[in-house]
Structure formats: structure tokens, C-alpha cells
């Protein structure tokens, strides 16, 4: 047993840290620190900075333009990115579709789409969920019917994250309604400019616009946009799920949140004294810190196992459940620390009049927005069902 990183891993960490210090623009870092919605411009610029360095597609092998990192190196990169207040990499093209195309796509599809993901020319969004198909994804109804060289798509997708910035969407669609639900689903690539597609914004609980509804009316998509075989979509969806689960614990982000909460608790006062001196609040912080310290090691243990076995196992559901609970607890503390100063609607007051420190004005909004993390990507209830089925032998 040895908890230390190797000398090479340590050197890699130094390199990543130096890279962010030298290359992450101040305005991007400040925007991330403030925690409001990030603009497309910021996300595009950050994407380009990483791409130029060759560090954008962290999970891709070298032959497709990735850095060829091990899981531990990826973990170090993610930790350092959080430490530097870099934005999250938008995952839909890079972490989701890219690996799918490498595994299931034709050579033409790989050549056409992978470089455009790296260059930022294509912004993908994920069209899985429907109003009636959330946790029970296999019940999806959006229909694709073959008509000559095209599929004709009719139906509705929803919860499409950052679809307002996207030019393409990858969808799960029903191609055979007469078989077991999982057997009649296909995975297809759609250009959002195709006639018959309408995207409408959904306003979230805190007022932000990050998800959308997408309506398909007689949308004609060329058959060569099918990935893999017809009716093979469920296999692809399951493969993609395992990729969605890398970095699922969000340890780096929680470490960043913990530092923010501590700094805030030193800065703000409760009844004339720094909040951090309030034993009840300090106890809350210490409690999450303990859980996070354990989660760091749990995460590394599972990374190590994945590195040994070649793939993450079902126990990564533990990372999703506990990782989101810790992150949500930290967001709760960041809001709680402000007391009534958390109440003003973000953006309504100028910084000099707002009662909260400038970087903390969004803390209540962030707390509410963050409730999503235990719902999407397989809700925490669904994760528990997975663990029950795969590990408990009841």
C-alpha cells in the first residue's frame, strides 16, 4: 500500500499547474469563480486553449488526437483544472460522442466528425431523454422511419443541455416499435439545421437557461448518419454510460468548493465574529471535509482498479451517489454562510450594494441549480438500483 503519486505523476502535476498559471485568461478564471452562467465565447476560448496544447480530449487515445493519458493522469489534470478555476469541458462531443464513434462509428464518420469536435467547429448536444422517458430511457418514443436514403424523425427530446449553443445532436430513436423496447432503438447523428427541428428554452429553478426542448417534425436525416447497425442503439447507450461515469465523483470541484466555503467563513461575520469561529458552522465544514477526504481515496481506489482491470466496474455508482451528496452539501454551506445576504436575486444589485461578497452573490442560485446533479446522469435512486442488482446478491 502506497498512497503517494509516482515521481512522474508528480512531475505531470507540476506541468499541468504551470500550464494553467500561464495560459488560463483572468476573465475566464474570474467568471468561473463567480459561478454564474458561462458564455459560449468563454467556453469556446477555453476549448481552443486546451486544443492547442493537445489536452482537450482527455479520454481519447493518441491516434485520434488525444493525449493518451492514464486514468490517474486524467484525475490529476481534472484536479488541477479545478484548482485553477478552469471551466468544465463541455462533455457531449468530447467525452460522449467521441468514444462512441471510435468504437462503433464507420471510418468516414470518424474522419468527418472527430476533427470537428476537436476544432470546436461542431458543438454536440445529447438527445436521450424525453418527457415520458427519463429514468426509463428504453421507453423512448421518438420515431425514425426509413424512407429511401433517409430516416424521417418525429417526436420530442427534452432536457437538452446547452442545445442553444449546439449545431448537432446525437439521438436515441425508435426504429422498431414491435420488439422488446431495448431491441428497437438506434443511435443517429442529426444536424440541427435540418428543416423540421425546433428548439425551445427551458428556464431552470434559479432562472438560468441551460436546458432545452427539441421538437422533431418530419425531419429527414441521411441514413449514413446512423452509428453502428440499425437497432443497436441500446448497446451504444450502455457503452456511453460507462464513459459518462469518468470523473463522476467530482472530487476536484468539491475540493474547490471546500476552499471557497472556508474562505467565505473567514470573511463573513455572524454576530460580530468571523463565521468560522462559530462552532456549529465549523462543525458542518469539518464534517464535509472528512467525507471529502475519504471520497478522494475512494475515488483513487476505483481509478486504480479501473487501471488494473481496463474498465470501471459497477461500484462507480458509489462515486456518483456520495460525490453528488458531498458537492450538494458544500453548496448548501456556501449559501448558509451568507445568511440573509444569499437572498437577493443574482444580478439585481450592483456589487457595491450587494450584501454578499462579489464572488458569492450566486451562492443560493448555485445551490438550487446543483440539485440537478443527483437527478441527471442516472438519478441517485437508479444508481442504488444498479448497485443492488450488480453487487448485493440479495
Amino acid at each position, binding site marked *: 500500500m502506497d498512497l503517494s503519486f509516482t515521481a512522474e505523476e508528480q512531475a505531470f502535476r507540476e506541468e499541468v499547474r504551470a500550464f494553467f498559471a500561464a495560459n488560463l485568461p483572468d476573465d475566464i478564471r474570474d467568471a468561473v469563480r463567480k459561478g454564474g452562467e458561462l458564455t459560449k465565447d468563454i467556453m469556446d476560448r477555453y476549448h481552443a486553449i486546451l486544443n492547442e496544447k493537445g489536452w482537450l480530449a482527455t479520454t481519447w487515445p493518441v491516434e485520434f488526437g488525444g493525449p493518451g493519458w492514464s486514468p490517474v493522469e486524467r484525475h490529476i489534470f481534472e484536479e488541477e483544472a479545478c484548482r485553477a478555476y478552469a471551466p468544465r469541458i463541455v462533455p457531449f462531443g468530447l467525452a460522449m460522442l467521441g468514444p462512441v464513434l471510435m468504437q462503433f462509428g464507420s471510418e468516414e464518420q470518424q474522419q468527418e466528425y472527430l476533427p470537428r469536435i476537436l476544432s470546436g467547429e461542431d458543438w454536440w448536444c445529447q438527445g436521450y431523454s424525453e418527457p415520458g422517458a427519463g429514468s*426509463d430511457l428504453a421507453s423512448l418514443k421518438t420515431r425514425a422511419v426509413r424512407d429511401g436514403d433517409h430516416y424521417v424523425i418525429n417526436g420530442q427530446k427534452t432536457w437538452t443541455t446547452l442545445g442553444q449553443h449546439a449545431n448537432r445532436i446525437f439521438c436515441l430513436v425508435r426504429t422498431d416499435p414491435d420488439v422488446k423496447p431495448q431491441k428497437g432503438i438506434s443511435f443517429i447523428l442529426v444536424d440541427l439545421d435540418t428543416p423540421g427541428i425546433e428548439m425551445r428554452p427551458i428556464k431552470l429553478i434559479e432562472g438560468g437557461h441551460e436546458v432545452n426542448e427539441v421538437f422533431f417534425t418530419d425531419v429527414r436525416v441521411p441514413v449514413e448518419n446512423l452509428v453502428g447497425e440499425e437497432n443497436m442503439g441500446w448497446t451504444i447507450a450502455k457503452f456511453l454510460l460507462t464513459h459518462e461515469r469518468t470523473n463522476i465523483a467530482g472530487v476536484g470541484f468539491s475540493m474547490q468548493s471546500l476552499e471557497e466555503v472556508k474562505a467565505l467563513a473567514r470573511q463573513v461575520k455572524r454576530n460580530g465574529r468571523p463565521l468560522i469561529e462559530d462552532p*456549529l458552522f465549523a462543525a458542518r465544514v469539518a464534517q464535509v471535509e472528512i467525507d471529502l477526504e475519504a471520497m478522494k481515496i475512494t475515488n483513487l481506489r476505483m481509478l486504480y482498479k479501473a487501471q488494473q482491470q481496463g474498465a470501471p466496474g459497477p461500484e462507480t455508482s458509489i462515486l456518483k451517489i456520495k460525490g453528488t451528496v458531498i458537492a450538494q452539501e458544500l453548496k448548501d454551506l456556501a449559501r448558509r454562510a451568507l445568511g440573509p445576504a444569499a437572498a*437577493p436575486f443574482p444580478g439585481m444589485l450592483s456589487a457595491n*450594494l450587494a450584501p454578499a461578497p462579489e464572488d458569492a452573490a450566486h451562492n443560493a442560485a448555485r445551490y*438550487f441549480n446543483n440539485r440537478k446533479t*443527483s437527478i441527471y446522469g442516472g438519478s441517485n435512486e437508479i444508481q442504488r438500483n444498479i448497485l443492488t442488482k450488480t453487487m448485493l446478491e440479495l
Partner: protein
Amino acid sequence: MDFSLTEDRQMLSDSLTRYLREKYPMEARNAAAYAEPFHAPAHWEGLSELGALFALAPEEAGGFGGTGFDVSVVFEALGGALCPEPVLAALMASRLMTAAGEDQEALLSGAVKYAVAIGEIDAWYDVDAVATEAVASGEGHALTGRKSVVYGGQVAEKLLVAARLDGKVALFEVAAEAASVTGYGMIDGGGAAEVVLDATPGRLLIADAGTALADAVNAGIVALCSEAVGAMDALYAMTLDYLRTRKQFGVAIGQFQALQHRSVDMLTEIEQARSITIKAASELGGPEAGRYASMAKNLIGRAGRLVAEEAIQMHGGIAMTWEYPGSHYAKRLVMIDAQLGDTDYHLSRVMAA
């Protein structure tokens, strides 16, 4: 022993509930709660006409209620409809004016809006810690300091301000137009204001206002706890309704035992919250009022967060949207904790007593 409402209170409860349901439904509520002036003047008038404010004051002060149970009845109805009107400000102002022996006809009729300015950025909850200073000036006094997140302050004409005078915390009436008042909306709807006082003239109401302020805060806590109970009942009903109707995997999600047991835990916490609120209401105005108000506010803080978070989680994505009414209930339930002392503050008060 009798846990039922008197006939008069039941009638008031019914008429407020009916008014809010019919005239101030969710779309109207959101339209008012999130845009200037962050309440609806017509509904302020409508609620005043139904006696919502007169019910908050005792007969000797010109009202027809004023006990903890009167306060509870009004605020539970408001909470059930997530009403953003600044009634809490009126309640607390009325308690203070009763203590000061001031005429409150204009307040109770709804003609003049008051807000109570106690909290400051470095002293949110502890009345003793306020730093705003008053000095004698000509006939009256001049006040200097900053009051923060003053609920209802965005529309108040009169501010009742706690400020230090001769080593004691005193209470002053300040005309809103004489102060620098910046109003804004809040994340859970409704409005507040930042109030900056710079040698602003104030009329002294009570020179040693510790007791009166404590009573106003205790009444405010009973109001907030009752509002939370009303909001929890409403959100819980929505959640059960959704569990019965939303289908996944071919069955209503309410069929999953994982969700059933958590729904029962919510129910348990809501019943506990209702009980401690009844206890705090029954003690309001008495010698133990502060202790029971603190117990209630602590429990409500915990229960409100649990109910809000569980309701969102068990709904799934739909409760993450602005369009779904449940999301607004959840926001209010979480944000109530920061008003008039949070879970930890009131826990420490119970520990110290």
C-alpha cells in the same frame, strides 16, 4: 385540550385561502414575485380588506387578534399559496407599535406599508449586535448605519429601525424617502431593500427597545414557521400527486418502495414541524416565547430543507424547472431558514438557555 381552530379563525383561514387560490394563483404569483415592485398592490389591498392585517394586532391596538394562533392562521394560508406580499413586515411593525403605544390604523388597514430594519451585514440575527448609531439632533435624532436585506423595504413608506442610543438598542421611525433605499427582488420571490442611513432623521419610539424587538422577532418567527408549514403541506401534496401519476418502467413511481419510505419521512417531519409551531404560537407573548420560537425555527430550518430537497429529488427533472410550481415552493422553504435566525443560530440559543 382542543387542537381545533376557533370558528372565527377557521373563517379567516378559509377566506384567505379561497382568495389566494382564486385570485392569486401561481402565474399571478410569479408575475408579481419576480418583477418590480415584487408584490401585487391589488392583492395587498384585497388581503387587507379580508382582515389579514387586523388579525395580527390585539383589540387594544385596533385589531381583532394578535395572539400566536392568529398569526399562525394568517401565515399558514399565505405559505400555502406562496404569497409574496410583505405581511411579515406589517406583523413585526405592528408588534413594535403596540409596544410603543403608537396608533396603527394606517398600518392595519394596509394604507401605509411599514418595514422593520434590524439586520446588518455583520449582525444578521442578534439584535444586541447592531452597529447603526443614533445621536440627538435638534428636536429628534439622526441615524447613521446600514440595514441589509430589509424584507418589504422595497415598497415601505415607513421604516422601523433598531439603532444604538446611549449604549442601548432603541427603536426609531424613519421615513423611507429620507433614507437611501435600494429595492430588489429575491431568489425565492418577493422584495427587500438595502437601507443606508447617513445622519437620517428618525423619531424615537422606544428608548430601550430590547424587549419589544425580541417580541417582534418571536412573532416573526411564529409567522415564518407557519408560512413554512403551509408551504410544506402544499409541496408535499404536489409530490404525492406526482408520485401517483408519473409513470416510469410501466408503473407509477409511487410504487417504488425507495420513494414510499422517504415520503413517509417527509410526512413525519412535517407533522413535527406543525407541532413545534403550535407550541411556539401558544407561548408567544409569554416569558418562554424566545425559547420556543428558537426550537421552532431550528426544527423548521431542518424540515424545510429536507422537504424541499426530497420533493425536488423525487420529482426528477421537472421540479428543476421554473415552470413547475413546486420549484418555487422549494426555494421559499430553503430560504426561510436565513430569515430571523437560521438553524444553527437558534440551536445555539436553545443550548444556552
